[in-house]
């Protein structure tokens, strides 16, 4: 599913971040952990094809991102990868349903209202389909963000600090939901977070430090 070899990335004016060689199989669920600034989000962006490493190779679903043009990267990301952000990042001008329909449209998939209703129902959001993001509660907004991430049936689900601002109960609920959704879609799940409360929920972990990284099962 994911292969990383000799990957390093350097932000403009910053130090190079070197990542371990790493292999993830289909359906696995991983916790990418480490202190703030160690490169967790950067790793997710490299895997999502949002960043291109200066060195090394990142391959997802058997395709090396480096071999794809900009447009093909965008299409592959939209079609096969769902991303959940720390904040919901729903488009404020659109309703919940329109946010989901936009995700399908941008991935080049046909408008499928039945699928949208099914996903909203699964996340207990069907009654909020016509609501704008600003009127949603924090939990609703997070579930809407999850709904958007899975609307295209992704093979890879990436979550960036999804529980940071949540209390223990909500943290457990969100991780459980992420795992369930990934399992239901047969998707591989990677959760990047420094939140230690996730450790009991995810069976595999990749720990990043500023000096070295190690993968632990």
């Amino acid at each position, binding site marked *: 599913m994911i292969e990383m070899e000799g990957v390093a990335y350097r932000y403009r004016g910053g130090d190079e971040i070197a990542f371990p060689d790493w292999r993830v199989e289909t359906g696995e669920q991983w916790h990418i952990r480490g202190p703030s600034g160690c490169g967790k989000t950067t790793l997710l962006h490299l895997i999502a094809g*949002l960043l291109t490493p200066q060195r090394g190779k990142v391959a997802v679903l058997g395709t090396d991102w480096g071999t794809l043009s900009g447009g093909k990267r*965008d299409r592959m*990301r939209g079609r096969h990868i769902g*991303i959940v952000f720390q904040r919901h*990042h729903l488009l*404020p*001008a659109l309703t919940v349903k329109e946010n989901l329909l*936009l995700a399908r449209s941008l991935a*080049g998939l046909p408008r499928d209202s039945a699928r949208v209703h099914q996903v909203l129902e699964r996340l207990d959001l069907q009654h909020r389909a016509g609501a704008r993001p600003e009127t949603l509660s924090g939990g609703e907004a997070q579930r809407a963000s999850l709904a958007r991430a899975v609307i295209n049936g992704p093979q890879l689900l990436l979550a960036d600090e999804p529980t940071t601002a949540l209390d223990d109960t909500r943290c457990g609920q969100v991780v459980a939901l992420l795992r369930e959704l990934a399992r239901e879609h047969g998707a591989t799940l990677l959760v990047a977070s420094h939140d230690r409360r996730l450790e009991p929920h995810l069976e595999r972990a990749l720990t990043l430090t500023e000096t070295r990284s190690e993968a632990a099962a």
Partner: protein
Amino acid sequence: MTTLRLILAYLRWRPLQAALNLLLMAVGVATLVVVLLFGHQIEERLQRDARGIDLVVGAQGSPIQLILSSVFHADIPTGNIPEETVERLREHRLVAGVIPLALGDSYRGLRIVGTEPAYIDLYGGKPAAGRLWERAMEAVAGADAAARAGLAPGRTFSGTHGLLADDHGGHVHDYAPYTVVGVLEPTGTVLDRLILTPVESVWHVHDEEAGHRHEENHGHEAVADDPDAAPRELTALLVRYRSPLAALALPREINREPGLMAASPAYESARLMEILGFGLDTVRAFAWVLVGAAALALFIGLYNALRERRHDLAVMRTLGASRLRVFLWIISEGVLLAVLGAGLGLLLGHGAAEVLGSWLGAVRQVPFTGTVWLPGELWLLAAAAGIGALAALPPAIQAYRTDIATTLAER
């Protein structure tokens, strides 16, 4: 979800900003439309009213004034010329036809024109009701004139001395009433707003007036004076050339005669449009300034919107939107706003032209309407689309260059 739905959703999200952009563009385009319609209709009207008239002969004065008063019936005449000029010109080898005009009176602001049936034929006039005149003091009303003054066959009316609409308070020739014998079909020309009568009617009215004054001054015995003793005069002659060569010789020949002046409607109309054109150009330039301001407002609006939507654009990129798609999204939004504004401007412009036309028609008898649509207006829409795209270009380029990872990390 299509790009159009996405754009409309964002316009609804910030309705005030969208409305301001639309309004600015609409006002600029509406002003351009009014100028366009006005220029076009005036020019068309001038051409239609002057068709078939090669030369106008009248009393010495301003050539433009002669054309305005005798062809377009929009100014006072330069003076009178002797009646025998008609016959002299009719016998001239370079002249194919002469139509005499005798002006001086009006009825409810509508000009009474003493002429011959050839004048009605010149504009293709036909009776819609009644018939043409057969003797003096019979009158035929143009379609608009009949409607405005309530003239119909069988009605009588008395002319008022003076030609201008504000001469209502002038001396009324109630001792010599006219009888309406016919109303003409609309022709779309100057004929529609005139009351026509034989030249002899105008002479008769003024002969009567002379007798009347004499009577008032000297008592009843003075009526015995022969009014025919006064020299017969005309206001202008509409001349048609026998050949184009006449244009070289005839005006010069007439201008050499004392008291006479020849003016070419084609030349004077062009001069008039030149003078009018300067005013229209000034208004047009002002309208383009308004459109420019609208483009600037559009640019500022889109630029601010882009700053506000940076994260939205980044999220859209993570969802699979290509750089080109976000670029086109911003360009399309600029084009749509500008075209919608221009569309609104077209409607506003035509509405304003119609209101202005009603006022001009009522007060100045200048026919002007907003119901005419010109092909040039499509160019206005195209220009608005271009301006919208241009205003959206810098924000769109910035959107194209948005670094997704950096933008997402900003929050």
